[in-house]
């Protein structure tokens, strides 16, 4: 039979009714079938620190989680609110510097400094980004790309916050287990929280802002208020990552504004599956360890994931997660046209 007369048909499995997120379960097998992927993710993440050997790889897991938070915030902003933010490093930097200052200047305990830095950092980021919120698409991307670069420049030029040396002597977490599980659990909370959020009323408004902001405006809702709320949520994730990072490295400096934090989360989102919110986490789980393995090549790893990124954007823009979901939730068969 030749190819032109056939096409692949995809049919949803029986437990899926009408729309995403609405299921008809006929028994505990189907319940298991439905919860298995979620369970694998949660259990897998929680088990990671236990099965990782040595001193080095557990550290990598924490880094993975921090990048995953950033990627999650990028995915949330870009695909649910329509704000493409190229400045993940901006969130990391703000949270990191705040936590470092709170810890060194005010002597706060890390477990106290991190939440405060998360919250205050998110407020600062939102306020700083407030003027840019009316922009869309390219314009917002350009501005957010510049924020981390310029903040680094300003810190360098004014020689504040330790200048080019950075802030030394930040306390570390009380112990390694706490460090890992704290970050992992917060990551899981954020992932499932974000998935919930986008299906709530406010999430629907967010998506409406992305798809047709004129319609939102016509419905008597202030677009910028919603955008600000979304930026607040996203920057809270980034600031939390930054604050943890500072306490892990026991040092905060200009490299918190480095391009790594902007580009790797985007790459992870594109690879893992844009618009799925779990995809970015998967992407980070794949990308960050690879990039750790490539550490000896120096900046060549940025080249490496830029190229992966281009490849995925161009040839497989839906990402692993969407592909996997299709395979898991749908039958496929060839039908005659």
């Amino acid at each position, binding site marked *: 039979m030749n190819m032109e007369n056939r096409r692949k048909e995809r049919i949803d499995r029986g437990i899926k009714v009408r729309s995403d997120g609405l299921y008809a379960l006929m028994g505990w097998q189907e319940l298991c079938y439905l919860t298995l992927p979620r369970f694998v993710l949660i259990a897998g993440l929680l088990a990671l620190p236990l099965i990782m050997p040595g001193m080095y790889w557990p550290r990598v897991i924490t880094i993975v989680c921090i990048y995953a938070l950033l990627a999650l915030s990028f995915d949330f902003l870009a695909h649910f609110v329509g704000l493409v933010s190229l400045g993940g490093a901006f969130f990391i930097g703000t949270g990191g510097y705040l936590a470092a200052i709170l810890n060194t200047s005010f002597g706060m305990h890390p477990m106290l400094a991190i939440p405060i830095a998360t919250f205050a950092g998110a407020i600062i980021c939102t306020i700083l980004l407030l003027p840019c919120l009316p922009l869309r698409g390219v314009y917002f991307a350009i501005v957010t790309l510049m924020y981390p670069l310029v903040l680094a420049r300003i810190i360098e030029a004014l020689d504040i916050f330790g200048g080019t040396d950075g802030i030394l002597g930040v306390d570390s977490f009380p112990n390694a287990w706490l460090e890992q599980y704290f970050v992992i659990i917060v990551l899981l909370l954020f992932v499932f929280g974000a998935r919930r959020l986008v299906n709530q009323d406010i999430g629907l408004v967010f998506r409406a802002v992305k798809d047709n902001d004129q319609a939102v405006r016509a419905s008597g809702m202030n677009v910028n208020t919603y955008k600000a709320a979304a930026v607040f949520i996203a920057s809270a994730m980034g600031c939390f990552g930054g604050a943890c990072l500072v306490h892990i490295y026991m040092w905060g400096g200009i490299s918190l504004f480095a391009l790594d934090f902007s*580009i790797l989360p985007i790459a992870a989102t594109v690879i893992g599956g844009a618009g799925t919110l779990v995809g970015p986490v998967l992407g980070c789980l794949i990308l960050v360890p690879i990039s750790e393995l490539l550490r000896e090549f120096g900046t060549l790893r*940025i*080249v490496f994931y*830029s190229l992966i*990124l281009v490849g995925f954007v161009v040839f497989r823009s839906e990402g692993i997660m969407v592909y996997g979901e299709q395979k898991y939730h749908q039958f496929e068969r060839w039908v005659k046209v």
Partner: protein
Amino acid sequence: MDILIYGIINSVMLALMALGFALVYGTSRIPNFAHGAIYVLCGFVAWFFVRSLELNYLLSVILSLLLIGLLGALIYRFVLIRVRGMNISEIIASYAIGLAIIETLRWGGFKGTTYTLPVIIEGGVMIGDIPVDYQRIFVVILGVAVVAFLWLFTHYTRIGLALRGMAQDERAALMLGIDSDTMAVVAMAFGCMLAGFAAIVILPLGNIVVEKGYDVLIQAIAVCIVGGLGSWMGAVLAAFIIGFAQILTTVYLGPQFQMVVAFLAIILTLILRPSGLFGQQKELEERV
């Protein structure tokens, strides 16, 4: 007086850096985030021809410009063409290409004082009581020449007219038989050649440093946004505004604030008048 002279020189440099970006965005609506990387790359290509192969200066300039133009065309033809019209993907793809180029160069260890391009004529001249070297004068002359050339090109040649047609209304241009993809390839090649030309003219004033790539990108974007994305004359005017603002801050505040000026210019323009000084887009399209 020296503020005036160096202000003009700085402005013309900015205009040279920005024209390529403006051309590509104006024609195909693709924000070429790889612009700065192309600029640096062309500097190194020219360096390779002049210093390593020891070719004739003029020959190596022409060769490197052609190579860079070809590279731009290839980038568009094989990568950007597939994501055209998808805003997020356009930005990510071109930004990633730029990063790949810059970081490859950095990994190759291209830094230090060995990487310099030759100036066209050594020496300098006194204008009034301010010393200005010939290269800077050449920058101004060549910058004006490029702007004049672009104007003539877009007003009196078929390709140039087609580019302008596409910039104004792509669908109408399509109906008149202008192949928008071919034209976008041409625009991309031209844009990259302009970036390369700027590099060859400006880089002899200092060393070739990889980090310049980001600075050039930021400055080009600043100029284009202040002037209005897609408007070439606006870009030239904005180059003068930002150029003088930068020189003034350098004189009165210190050179480390140059970038901050570019950034503030972007933010202020975007807040007050997002379409820029001479933007042709309707305001509604770009802000809510």
